[in-house]
C-alpha cells in the first residue's frame, strides 16, 4: 500500500482545516479528508487486499491519520460554532437601559400597612388580632366602658348616631351609633373569652369631625387589651415601650404621663421622642374595675391594661405626612410611595 499520497494529505490537513472560513467550508473539507469518498476511506477499503501480517500496521496508520484529522476538524468546528454564536449574540444586542416590561405594580394602602405592622409587632409577643362591628350599641361604645350617661363624648357634637335598621326605636344603652373608638371590642372580646386575654383590635372609627388637616369623620384605631391575674402598671409600660421601639426603631424613647380616660384607672398618655420632640402617641391605662364588672370578670381577681392608638397619627408621625386627607383621597401618586 502506498501511503505517500496519504501522508501528503495528512501533512497538508492542519493548514487547510485552520483555513476553513466557515462551517460549510469545514464540512466540505471533512468530506474530502475523512468522508466516504476520501483517499483515507478508499485506502481502508483496500486493507483487505494486504497481507495478514501487514494489515494491522497499515490499519493503525490509517486510524492514526483519521483520528489526527478528525480531532483537528472537531477543534476547528468548535471554534467556528463559537464564532457563529458570538456573531448571533452580537446581532442580538439591545439597549438594556430602555424601560423594562414592568408587571403592573399594586400597593397596599398605608393605613393597612400600618395596621398590619402594629398587629404584627403585638402578634410577635403573643397577642391575638380581633375585629368588630362599626355600627355599635351605646352599651359597648360607652356604658360598658364606664362612660357616664352624661359624658360629653356621647353628645351628637362628638358621636354620630344612626337610625334603627329595623324601625324599632332604641334608647339608652341600645342606641345605635358609629363606634367612636375600637374600645367596644374590649367588652365584646371579654364576653366571649375567659382570661388570660391578650388581643389587639384594628379598625375603623367615626367622630362628628369636620375635615381638616388633622381631623376626619372616619379614621382608624388599634385597641389593645391584656387581662390576667398578675398584670401591673409595669406590664403596661414595658409592653408599650417595646411597641414603640419596634415601630419607630430601637432608639425610641417613651414617657408616660398621667391622663384621664373613663375606662382606665390609672390612665396615661404615652409620648415618644421622635425627630427631636415628644409626641403624644397613644392613650392607655390600667383597666377600670367597672369595665371588668360590665363584662362579668371579677375585678378583685383579674387586672389588665388597655391602650388605643390612632393609625393615621402613627403613619403621619412615622412618614412625615402633614394632612390626614391624603389617606382618603387615594391618589396613586401618594399610594405608590408606600408599597
Amino acid at each position: 500500500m502506498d501511503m505517500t499520497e496519504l501522508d501528503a494529505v495528512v501533512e497538508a490537513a492542519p493548514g487547510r482545516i485552520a483555513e476553513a472560513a466557515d462551517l460549510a467550508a469545514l464540512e466540505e473539507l471533512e468530506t474530502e479528508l475523512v468522508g466516504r469518498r476520501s483517499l483515507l476511506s478508499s485506502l481502508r477499503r483496500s486493507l483487505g487486499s494486504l497481507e495478514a501480517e501487514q494489515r494491522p500496521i497499515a490499519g493503525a496508520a490509517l486510524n492514526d491519520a483519521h483520528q489526527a484529522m478528525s480531532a483537528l476538524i472537531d477543534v476547528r468546528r468548535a471554534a467556528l460554532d463559537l464564532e457563529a454564536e458570538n456573531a448571533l449574540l452580537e446581532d442580538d444586542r439591545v439597549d438594556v437601559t430602555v424601560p423594562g416590561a414592568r408587571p403592573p405594580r399594586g400597593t397596599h394602602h398605608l393605613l393597612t400597612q400600618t395596621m398590619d405592622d402594629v398587629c404584627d409587632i403585638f402578634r410577635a409577643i403573643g397577642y391575638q388580632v380581633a375585629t368588630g362591628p362599626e355600627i355599635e350599641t351605646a352599651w359597648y361604645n360607652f356604658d360598658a366602658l364606664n362612660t357616664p350617661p352624661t359624658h360629653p363624648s356621647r353628645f351628637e357634637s362628638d358621636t354620630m348616631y344612626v337610625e334603627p335598621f329595623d324601625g324599632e326605636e332604641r334608647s339608652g344603652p341600645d342606641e345605635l351609633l358609629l363606634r367612636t373608638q375600637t374600645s367596644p371590642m374590649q367588652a365584646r372580646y371579654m364576653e366571649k373569652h375567659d382570661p388570660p386575654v391578650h388581643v389587639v383590635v384594628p379598625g375603623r372609627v367615626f367622630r362628628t369631625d369636620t375635615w381638616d388637616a388633622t381631623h376626619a369623620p372616619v379614621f382608624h384605631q388599634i385597641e389593645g387589651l391584656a387581662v390576667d391575674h398578675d398584670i401591673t402598671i409595669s406590664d403596661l409600660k414595658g409592653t408599650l415601650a417595646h411597641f414603640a421601639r419596634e415601630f419607630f426603631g430601637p432608639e425610641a424613647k417613651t414617657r408616660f404621663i398621667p391622663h384621664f380616660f373613663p375606662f382606665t384607672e390609672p390612665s396615661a398618655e404615652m409620648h415618644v421622642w421622635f425627630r427631636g420632640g415628644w409626641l403624644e402617641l397613644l392613650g392607655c391605662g390600667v383597666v377600670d374595675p367597672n369595665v371588668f364588672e360590665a363584662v362579668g370578670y371579677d375585678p378583685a381577681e383579674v387586672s389588665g391594661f388597655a391602650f388605643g392608638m390612632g393609625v393615621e397619627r402613627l403613619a403621619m408621625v412615622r412618614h412625615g405626612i402633614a394632612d390626614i386627607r391624603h389617606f382618603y383621597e387615594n391618589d396613586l401618586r401618594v399610594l405608590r410611595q408606600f408599597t
Partner: protein
Amino acid sequence: MKVPLNWLSDFIDLPTRDPEVLDEILGSLGHEVEGWETLRPTFEGVVVGKVEEVGAHPNADKVRFCRVNDGTSTLDVVCGAWNFEAGAVIAYATVGARLGTDDAEPFEISAREIRGVMSNGMICSARELGLGDDHEGILVLDELGLAGDADVGRDFSELLPFDDVVLDVSITPNRPDCMSIHGVARELAAYWQIPITLPDVDVAPEGPPTDARVEILDPEANPRFTGMEVDGVAMGPAPLWMQFRLLSVGQRPISNVVDVSNYVMLEMGHPIHTYDQDTISDGRLAIRRAEDGERLTTLDGVERTLVAGDILVTDPSGPIGLAGVMGGSTTEVSETTTRVLVEAAHWDPPSIMRTSHRLGLRSEASARFERGVDPNLSHLATQRTARLIVETAGGVVRPGLIDEYPTHIDPWAVDITARDVSRLLGPEPTLEDSDGLLRRLGFEVAGTPDGLRVTVPTHRPDVTRPADLVEEIARLHGYENFPDHVRRGENGALTPAQAKERSVRRILVGAGLAEAQTLSFVGQADLDLLRLPDGDARRIGIRVINPLREEEGTMRTTILPGLLKAVAYNTARGTSDVALFEVGRVFIPAADSTDIRIPHQPVKVACAAVGMFGADGLDIHGRPTDVHTVTGILEMLTAALGRTMTLSAAELPALHPGRAAEVSIDGKPCGIVGELHPAVARDFGLEGRVAVAEIDLEPLIADQPDWSFDDVSAYPPARFDLAFVVDASTPAAAVLEAARAADVGGVLESVDMFDEFTGGSLGDDQKSIAVRLVLRAFDRTLTDEEVGPLRTVIIESVVAATGAALRGG
C-alpha cells in the same frame, strides 16, 4: 388653662421658674403643659414722670400743654388727655422711647412740633403700654396707687411684674379642682412637699345686715347657695394689677366687680355670679327647675326658650338667671350699680352640662360647674369676692353670709388594702409609701387592719374607689419610677380567616391593583349616579342621624361609589390608568346573625379600573381595561385561594347590559362584575370603559375542609387545539364546560380558550371558539392511538351540549 408664674407665686414659693422643669413636673402629675409664653414689657424708655404744670395750648383746643419732670429735668409735652391735673404722677415715654415692641414695627417717640409747640415725648395711656384697652385717658399712677412722687424717674417697667412666664396647662376633665391657680399650686405643693398659702378671705362686715334671701326649691339641682352683699360700691375699672393679671391669662378686663368675679374664679376655681341687688325684686331669690317653654333673656341680650331640667334663679318677678350658665339681663351689674349681691353656688353638674351644650353657651363657668366644683369652697369664694370688691370698688360688706346648704356634703372615706395597691402597681410603692403620698395630696389617712382608711376632701370628686386611690399613689410616686416589663401573650397567630383576608389583599396587590380606603358613607346623590333603580337593595341604607355633610348621610351599602370617586379623583389629576380595590364593610339594614342588636355589616371586596391595565414598557402598554380585565383578576384571585368562580351573564343596574355578570364562588352567588354603563361612567366623570367588581369576602376566606394535595403526573402531556362554530349567543363557558364534562377517563388536564373569531366564512349569527386541550395520564404516556378516540369524545360532548360544529372538522 393659663397659669402665670407670678400668680402661682401668691400660693407657693416656686423652687424654680424654669418652664422646661415645670413642664416636666406638671406633666408627671398628669397636667400636661402644652406650651408657655414669656411676657415682657411691650415698651422701652418709659419712666415715671410728674406733671409740674398743665396749661392751654396756644394754638389748639383739644390738647393741652404740660411740663413733665422725668426725674432729672423738666420738659415740654403736649397731651390730648384731660383726666389729670398738675401734680399727677404719670407714665412718660421719653424721646427715643419705643412703644409696641412686641409688634413687628414698634413706634419710636421723637421730639416733634405740635401746632407750633415742641413736644418732647408722650404721656401714655394703658393701651399704649400694652395694659389693656383703656385709652380714654392717660394712666394716672398716683390715683391707681402704683407710684408716687418718690418714684419719679424710675423705669416704669419696674412698677408692674411685667416679666412673667404663662404656662398653658391642659387639665383633664376629671380634675375640676385643678381648673384654678390655687389648684395647680396645690398639686405642685404636694409634689415639692412645700407649704401653700391660702387666699385671704377675711371680710369686715359693717352696718345693717343684708336683706337678701335665698330659697332653694330643688336641693338636687342646687345643693348649696352662698351669697354676700357689698353695699356702696363704685363701679369703674379694676386696679391695674388685677387687669394686668387678667390680661396675662387672656381675659379682657371689663369693670371692677366683673373682673373680681373672674379673678376669683381663676384663682380659686369657683365660678362667681354678681347681681345688682337693687334689681332683684324684693331681694328674694328662689332656685328651681325650669318648665318647658319658659323664657329668659340672658345678659347677652338673647331670649332663650328653656326646657324642663334647666336650673333657674328666680325672683318674685320670674326667672332672672340661667344658673351656672349665664345670668339674666335684668339683674346684671351695670355702671350705676351700688349694691352687689355675690353668688357662689354649687349646681348639679349634669344639668349644667345639658343646658350649656343645648344652648351652645359654654363658658369658663359652665366648664367648671359641669365637671364639679367643690361645694365646701362656696362660702370661701363668696367671702374672697366680697373682700376683693371692697378692695377694688369700695363699699362695705353687709353682715350676714347667705348659706343655704340643705344637705351638707362631707369628705368621704375610701378603704384600700395593701393588695389593692400591689396587684396594680407591683411591690413599690409599699403601703407605707402610699400612706405618705396620699397625705401629701391633703388626704387624711388612718390605718386599718389590712390597709388604709383614706378620707378624701370634697374638692376631689374623682376619688371614690380604691382604684382611684391607686391612681393617686401611682401619679405622685411617678410613672417613670415603675420598672418596665414586656407582657407576652400565648398565641399571636392569625386565625385562618384573618390570614386569608391578608392573602386576598396581597393577591390583588400582586395583580397590580392599588388598595384604597374610602369613606364608609354614601349620599343619595352617589346612589343616583349609579342609577340604581328604586327597588335596588343598595338604595336602602342605614341613615346617619347627625351627619356633618349630606354626602356622609347614609352608611354605605356598596363600596363602588366611593371607589369610583377615587378613580375619578386620579383621572382628574392626570393619572389615566387606574386600578383600585378596597376591602371594607358595608352596612345592611337587617339584624346581624350573631348579635341581633346591631345590623349586618359584611365585608366586601370591590375593585374598579379604567385606562390600560397590565405590564408596561417600551413596546407594551398593558391592554385596555374592559370587563375581562376584572373577570381575569377575579379568576386569578379565586384560583389562588383554591376556589371555583363561575360567571353568569346578566343585565344588572349600573352596569353595561352586555358586559356584566353575576359572580358565584363555589356555587354560591356572591357579587357582580362588569363594565359600568357608559352613562354611569360619564356621571362619575370617567371616560372609556370602566370595569368594576364587588363580591363578598366571606366565601374567599371561609374554611376549606377539602384542600388537599393533587399529585402531578410524571408523563408528558398530549396537546391539541379544537375550534367550534357555535351560535353567536352561546357563552364560551358552555363550550368549555362541555369539554370538561366529556368522559375521557380522568385524563383531561386543562381546557382553555385561546381565540374567538367572527366574520369570514362564518354566518352573521355564528362565532368560532378555539380551545386548547391538554390530556395527560398518571400512569403512562398517552399514545396517538389513545388520544384520537378521546378527542372524538370531547368533540361529541361539545357538539351535544351546544349544537356546535367542529370547524374544519
